[in-house]
């Protein structure tokens, strides 16, 4: 039955875990199939940092200058932190789901004794693991090359808070990406278009990936606080920089957990409806 929620073969827990670890491992190795492609993806990330670095470095040439609540050290830390957190949160293989739905390849996976959600989460983790290794090396090399003044957070609560928010952001992005890809159940031709709009434009801008969201007026920032996007990149960095205080961190935590729960239920609901609509075209 297509509508079965979880296609899991009942085995002992360690076997189940092994299965997904194997998927993670295979997916990790697949990333090296087109090595040059991967290298260029990382080169692109480095170039994006160069561009952002030189732009903000120029605006903050005067070390005493403070714009939008940032001084030179904090804005350049923002640029570097975004590079690093982006590689953890936004790198994902689940972008391929829409293609699998539209060309019928999804049927192959549904017949296998794997949980579809866990399968893609395992693949996402492999992509994140690979990207984070490279991001770490790149951040280090770029630091040596550019020698930016970096703001080092020493307050433990901010450091732990930033890590917690990054972990929550991983879950949040997974559900956002999953829902966006499931558009292909109803519009197989437009899966990519939906990703362009939701992930490529809305998420990219409103997550703070292009510029810090503090540049907007306060009213707009209040609205952003209730949307899920800023919790992907911007908010974890703000927690690290110490730009948000205790009450704001608690409010942010409630909002992001609320979004994760809501998106989880929405994902399962859309998935079940989508499967009813799925006709395995192309197979």
């Amino acid at each position, binding site marked *: 039955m297509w509508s079965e929620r979880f296609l899991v073969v009942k085995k002992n827990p360690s076997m189940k875990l092994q299965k997904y670890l194997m998927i993670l491992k295979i997916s990790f190795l697949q990333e090296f199939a087109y090595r040059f492609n991967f290298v260029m993806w990382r080169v692109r990330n480095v170039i994006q940092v160069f*561009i952002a670095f030189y732009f903000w470095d120029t605006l903050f040439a005067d070390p005493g200058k403070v714009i939008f609540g940032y001084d030179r050290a904090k804005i350049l830390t923002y640029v570097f932190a975004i590079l690093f957190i982006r590689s953890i949160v936004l790198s994902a293989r689940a972008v391929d789901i829409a293609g699998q739905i539209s060309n019928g390849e999804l049927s192959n996976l549904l017949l296998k004794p794997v949980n579809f959600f866990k399968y893609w989460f395992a693949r996402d983790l492999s992509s994140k693991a690979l990207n984070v290794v490279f991001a770490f090396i790149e951040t280090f090399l770029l630091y040596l090359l550019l020698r930016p003044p970096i703001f080092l957070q020493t307050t433990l609560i901010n450091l732990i808070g930033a890590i917690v928010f990054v972990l929550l952001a991983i879950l949040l992005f997974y559900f956002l990406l999953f829902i966006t890809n499931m558009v292909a159940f109803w519009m197989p031709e*437009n899966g990519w278009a939906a990703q362009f709009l939701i992930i490529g434009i809305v998420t990219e801008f409103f997550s703070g990936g292009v510029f810090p969201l503090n540049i907007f007026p306060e009213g707009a920032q209040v609205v952003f606080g209730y949307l899920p996007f800023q919790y992907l990149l911007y908010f974890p960095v703000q927690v690290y920089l110490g730009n948000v205080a205790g009450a704001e961190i608690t409010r942010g935590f409630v909002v992001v957990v609320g979004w994760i729960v809501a998106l989880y239920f929405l994902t399962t609901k859309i998935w079940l409806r989508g499967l009813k609509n799925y006709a395995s075209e192309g197979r």
Partner: protein
Amino acid sequence: MKKLKKYLVVWGLMIRNVLSANLNKKVGFLIFFIGKMLRFVLAGLFVFYTLQGTKSLAGYDTDQVIFFYLTYMLIDALGQVFFRNVYSFRQIVVTGSFDLILSKPVNTLFRVLLGGMDIIDMGTTIFFLGTVVWWGARLSPNSAGIILYSLLIFNSLIIIAAFHILVVALGIITLEIDHTIMIYRDIESMGRFPIDIYKEPIKSIFTFIIPIGIMLTVPAKALMGLATAQVIVVSFIVSGVLLFLSIKFWGFALKRYTSASS
């Protein structure tokens, strides 16, 4: 003349094919159009609010910086309109379809570069052209400035063509297009702001080596009467040299095509 007519006919046919293929994807068309307009608005807000914070950029006032941004959007959209086919070139190579293009009695580079127009950007180009004319009028340009601006926009198209030729040539050798073209787009995005705001050596690198400045900043400066004759002459020379080198590199890459996928 006969050859030019033939290529115009072929180009017309290719545009017709793209149009008929895209007319069946109305929803996708609408989503992409909304996305592109949203990107324009959000990036514009970034430019605007950055100026609010810094008051001026490298001596340029708000009206001038917004005109630089609108020129960037216009030139970027023009590149998409003409050279969109490059984005799908990898698929053409890895599936072996490139052999079919090579065997046709039409220049291969012409077919690869201009084989697929982005009809969404035809719409956005008209919109950006309108905003450029509207905002440009606020800067009170003279006739010479307007003529130079138009000529330099055409010059920018030559530079964009050269960049796209380099990308497809590299694609033949490495089978990598997607990230290379996006690297070009990322570097191009530096031109949202006038290149003059960057410090040396970045400013010189992005003016003469990777001529984003010539492509995006010089046309707007010419309209404002801020570009010297020397810079304008150098702009035309750089585009010519870049186009020549890119065509040479295309020839070099073509000789290395192994047809392994077909």
